[in-house]
């Protein structure tokens, strides 16, 4: 039977880039540090095909300042959750859709698009989720800089004070 430490050891032997980047905070949990898109895509097929993490419970987004974080919760038959993390800069928030390998991630990936502004390449066409129709473009409410106080649900417009707007514009420049 594989256990958490043995899984980590096998992965580190296979991928030196994972050295010191995998942790076991408690039984049934393996957590990685954030990997770049290239690193993530290099590791994932092996984790899925060879290590038995063929089920995906979830992918959640996080705001990491200049970057967006994506935490994939993968599960094997022993019920171990492997939190494999990927990040992408907010200026170019592109990740690949995993809904082909893990169909259970489709709605969650749509959420990354609507709530965080991620660009999920290869995500099948479908209705946006979960924001309502008429939601203003370019508004990603789960990003830390988005403040609900400036959002008017009646007109569906986001109206930050001029100062905030200027700062945001400077940042994106």
């Amino acid at each position, binding site marked *: 039977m594989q256990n958490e430490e043995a899984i980590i050891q096998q992965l580190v032997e296979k991928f030196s880039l994972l050295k010191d980047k995998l942790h076991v*905070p408690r039984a049934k*949990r393996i957590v990685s540090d954030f990997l770049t898109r290239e690193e993530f895509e290099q590791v994932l097929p092996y984790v899925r095909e060879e290590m038995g993490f063929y089920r995906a*419970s*979830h992918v*959640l987004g996080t705001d990491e300042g200049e970057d967006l974080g994506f935490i994939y*919760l993968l599960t094997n038959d022993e*019920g171990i959750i492997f939190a494999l993390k990927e990040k992408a800069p907010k200026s170019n928030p592109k990740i690949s859709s995993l809904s082909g390998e893990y*169909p259970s*991630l489709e709605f969650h990936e749509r959420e990354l698009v609507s709530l965080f502004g991620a660009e999920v390449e290869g995500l099948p066409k479908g209705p946006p989720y979960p924001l309502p129709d008429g939601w203003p473009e370019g508004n990603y409410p789960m990003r830390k800089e988005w403040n*609900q106080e400036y959002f008017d649900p009646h007109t569906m417009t986001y109206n930050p004070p001029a100062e905030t707007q200027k700062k945001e514009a400077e940042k994106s420049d």
Partner: protein
Amino acid sequence: MTEYNRVVIPIGPQHPSLKEPACFTVTLEGEKIVDAVIGIGYNHRGIEKACESRYYTQIIYLLERVCGICSHTHTTAFCQGVEELAGVEIPRRAAFIRVLVAEIERLHSHLLWLGVAAHEIGFDTMFMYTWRDREAVLDILAELGGNRVNYSINTIGGVRRDIDDSLKQDILKMVDALEEQVKYYRELARSETTLAARLAGVGKLSREDALKYGAVGPVIRASGVDFDIRKVDPYAVYGEIPFKVVTDTHADVFGRTVVRVLEMLESIEIIRYCLENMPDGEITAKAPRRIPAGEVISRTEAPRGEDIHYIRSNGTEIPDRVRVRAPSEANWHAMKQMLLGQYLADVPITIAAIDPCFSCTDRAIAVNSGRETELMDWPRLRQYSVDWYKKRGIDVSSVKMPERRSYF
């Protein structure tokens, strides 16, 4: 049949066969479904953003309102996650109470489902039986926490309500009576041919597809997979309680019915075990207001399946990120597979069979009232009701109310 003969029918977001808003756009060839698009999100009200501006203690009550049916499981997942981050070990009595309430909650949730499913197939006698039985369970929850659905048992560090001997006796009486009823439903499932004829072969989901599409709870267990967080990753005191993970191999709505009915019998045994083995002692441990920086993935087995909470602390009194992956959210992906090849008339029961909770899927938001709150016991609540009607010219004070409930 060519594409020209196909008919597209939108079912929802408001539709007589749906209890909550969702839109299922099905493409038909004759009466058979050849494609389905699932549109959800109508209940999204931004709970996760709200969590990022509230204290941990406030969030318990916010997350309790993610779901009006399995409210306890969400607060359990959240509280045990925060306790793990803070290094707080809850008293054993509190852990027993958490499990006890979780299983009572499973009873009322499964009875609710059984009633809805019976109604969807036109078996309204069973609907009325099960909802009558559910009332007894809700009465116990109301006596325990003061409310029928959001009973606010959990807090960070333990639980807020203790079980006294009188309540213990009431719970035992309730489960004794309920056990007889559930056994009757089990017999019904085995011997009532109309039930099997209506449910067997409907909403098929193979074991492979259940795993591939990430199904959880009774849905995956009815496809033959013994995946139950209470066994796979035990929390509270589940690790020491003897119980069986119920599975079935029918892989259809009939199988999901059997699993839920048999799970109720297991829940009754767990409740008895908790009441017999619950140690005396404290029910809360002191927890810090500021939670040490870190992240945690906490999970519980809700009545609908695996409930996952991701919590990240930045070392303050307010979390940096909270994410709730409710079980209904996981089961939607398999829905399309269940619908394909089915008849249009089977859509309502197929959807109902995953026991969907749209609020769980989309997550809700807190209500700011600003009012002071007070705890009312039953006599005070009764008096409040009498006074309320009296002001409107109706005198109900002569209506006799039983001191203790009679079961069935």
